[in-house]
């Protein structure tokens, strides 16, 4: 692992204008990821975690826009690249997989063709003739596709190359998506809740596959999930998000084993835990705030059992807690 981080996000702010005002979906987020590392972004719906991933790939649809910040990938600021340069990155250097495979795969094309499309768009196989005429290039591409289908665990790739997405089960569809993402050999994989729609035994298979890919290919992964258990088992470090901001961050053992922000603690308290029969779960009272009308200071204050007047006075910085870069955005640790 080299010293230069693979990805450095600095002060990222992504806004969606609405009739009632600007929604700060991502509000001043900093993240760093090294080669081969697995980072988890954890939070509930609406906290901005998916928006962070979409922002990295500049897939934010108008009228939403990235209002501020830098996204440094291998030293280059992605936010300064042209459309053409960004297209070189998407799918080839940084790839993404989404939550519901059936809505991301094209129902009208065979799965094998969809995997091949990525190879073709990025000219991975260089032929001398125009593509439709170059049989050698096309068969080389097919070879690569079959190989990756095997790598991701799709049985009988030769037969399934011509299958349509609806002929695959949920787990197989997700494997197909992973194949599309990996076929050009990206160094970073963004995964937005890839296993939420899957059964638990299939989830275990997919996470196992992703771990293998990380170990064998050295692909760095950012995994967005609402499931703390998945994050705890799978990630090296995690960032907990609330209302567009990171509230706690650090090595996964630290954040899960010794949570320092009241929201993280609340999340862990509200989950039933296996092996602890008599333990009551304590839901976090109240609801997630309206992102248009965020109060000054800490967004979690209205629901926080430890809230003080100082919590809502001004922006709260990160304070170090524990070891190895574990930080929490909470004045309890000032």
């Amino acid at each position, binding site marked *: 692992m080299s010293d230069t981080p693979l990805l450095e996000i600095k002060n990222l702010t992504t806004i969606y204008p609405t009739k009632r005002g600007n929604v700060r979906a991502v509000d001043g987020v900093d993240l760093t990821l090294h080669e081969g590392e697995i980072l988890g972004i954890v939070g*509930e*719906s609406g906290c901005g975690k998916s928006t962070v991933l979409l922002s990295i790939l500049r897939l934010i649809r108008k009228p939403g826009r990235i209002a501020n910040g830098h996204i440094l990938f291998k030293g280059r600021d992605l936010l300064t690249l042209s459309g053409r340069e960004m297209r070189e990155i998407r799918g080839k250097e940084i790839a993404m997989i989404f939550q519901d495979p059936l809505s991301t795969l094209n129902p009208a094309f065979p799965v094998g063709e969809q995997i091949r499309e990525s190879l073709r768009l990025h000219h991975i196989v260089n032929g001398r003739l125009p593509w439709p005429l170059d049989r050698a290039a096309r068969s080389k591409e097919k070879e690569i596709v079959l190989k990756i289908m095997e790598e991701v665990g799709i049985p009988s790739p030769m037969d399934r190359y011509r299958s349509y997405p609806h002929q695959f*089960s*949920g*787990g*197989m569809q997700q494997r197909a998506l992973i194949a599309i993402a990996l076929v050009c050999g990206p160094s970073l994989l963004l995964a937005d809740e890839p296993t939420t729609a899957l*059964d*638990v*035994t*299939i*989830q*275990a*298979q997919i*996470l*196992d596959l992703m771990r293998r890919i990380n170990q064998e290919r050295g692909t760095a992964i950012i995994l967005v999930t*609402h*499931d*703390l*258990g*998945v994050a*705890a*088992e*799978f990630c090296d470090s995690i960032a907990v998000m609330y209302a567009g901001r990171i509230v706690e961050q650090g090595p996964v*053992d630290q954040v*899960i084993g010794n949570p320092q922000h009241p929201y993280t603690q*609340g*999340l*862990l308290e*509200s*989950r*039933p*835990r*296996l*092996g602890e*029969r008599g333990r009551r*779960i*304590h*839901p*976090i009272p109240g*609801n*997630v705030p309206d992102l248009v009308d965020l109060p000054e200071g800490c967004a979690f204050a209205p629901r926080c059992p430890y809230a003080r007047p100082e919590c809502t006075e001004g922006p709260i910085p990160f304070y170090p807690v524990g070891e190895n870069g574990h930080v929490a955005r909470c004045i309890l640790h000032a």
Partner: protein
Amino acid sequence: MSVMVDRNTQQVPLIEARGVRKHFLLRPGFLARTLARAQTKIVRAVDGVDLHIWPGETLGLVGESGCGKTTLGRVLTRLYEPTAGEIYFEGHPLRGDKVMYVNGDGREEVHFYRLAQIIFQNPYSSLNPRKTVRDIIGVPLRYRGITDPLEREEEIVRLLRRVGLNERHLDAYPHQFSGGQRQRIGIARALAMRPKFIVADEPVSSLDVSIQAQVINLLEELQEEYNLTYLFIAHDLSVIYYISDRVAVMYLGHIVEEGPTDALFESPKHPYTQALLAAIPRVNKKARRERIILRGNVPSPIDPPKGCPFHPRCFAKKGRICEEEYPPTFQVGEQRVACWLYDQYPVAQPRYTTTGTREEDHD
């Protein structure tokens, strides 16, 4: 007719299912049948289930997609009629959609919906978008016999308050509520009938973690207060562990293992249960189990394999017998397991009394 009675306590289960099957027919269209000789296929969603639920308890029902748990929940509330088998309420058989109900005041034949209700999984599709909250909860009250509109309104408000909403919401429509709130409306609707038995079909799966906890706590409080019996269907094993007294594990239309929650989670007997429990991602490192990664996919209930339905994916397969014969249910300690690995144990016996019929049925 024999009645299931616990030999020790003389208690009768609130709900009992015997040999319940529910099959759906997939009939191809006219052209497909005449030109392509396409056959009618059978989806064996529930394929021979024996189940009992004691009064006041929560039975957790787990399984993955396609195992038949939702179908079983609907058969037990008679939203579907079983293809085969019988369902008993407090020892009395269901006849059509009615059943004999005995209480302190006497006995009468009532519609089963007075006694059994369901809370659906998807709060977005289970409420009529064209009805106000007042109507959604008011209609069941009318069926309960509350004809006076003022009295009904009072009861609706009472129910709303009990689930954490209030009278401001009476004239609102479902789309104006969040997922968690809609689920609460669904709960109020189920309670409106004052049922004794509620099937909760994945009531918290589509909710955020912190809202899940709120709804789970609410369901527990209501159970105490209204003396309810629950069949809690879920695929999230942590939630099942938390809320259930006993757990039944389903696979491809069959119950493969059943037992008290602690026993089943601590020492799962059926290979499928073991794989299921091993697959749960754990926050607590020490609680993590050795990974059992199951090969293959969950099979389709249209073409179930011969013999034990789990044998194609089983890592502990015993031999040919698994492929040829469906295993009987063995009593292994506190659990009942349908697996050939345990054939040295006795076959589980249902606990019927020897005297048989209930005296009331002689009237």
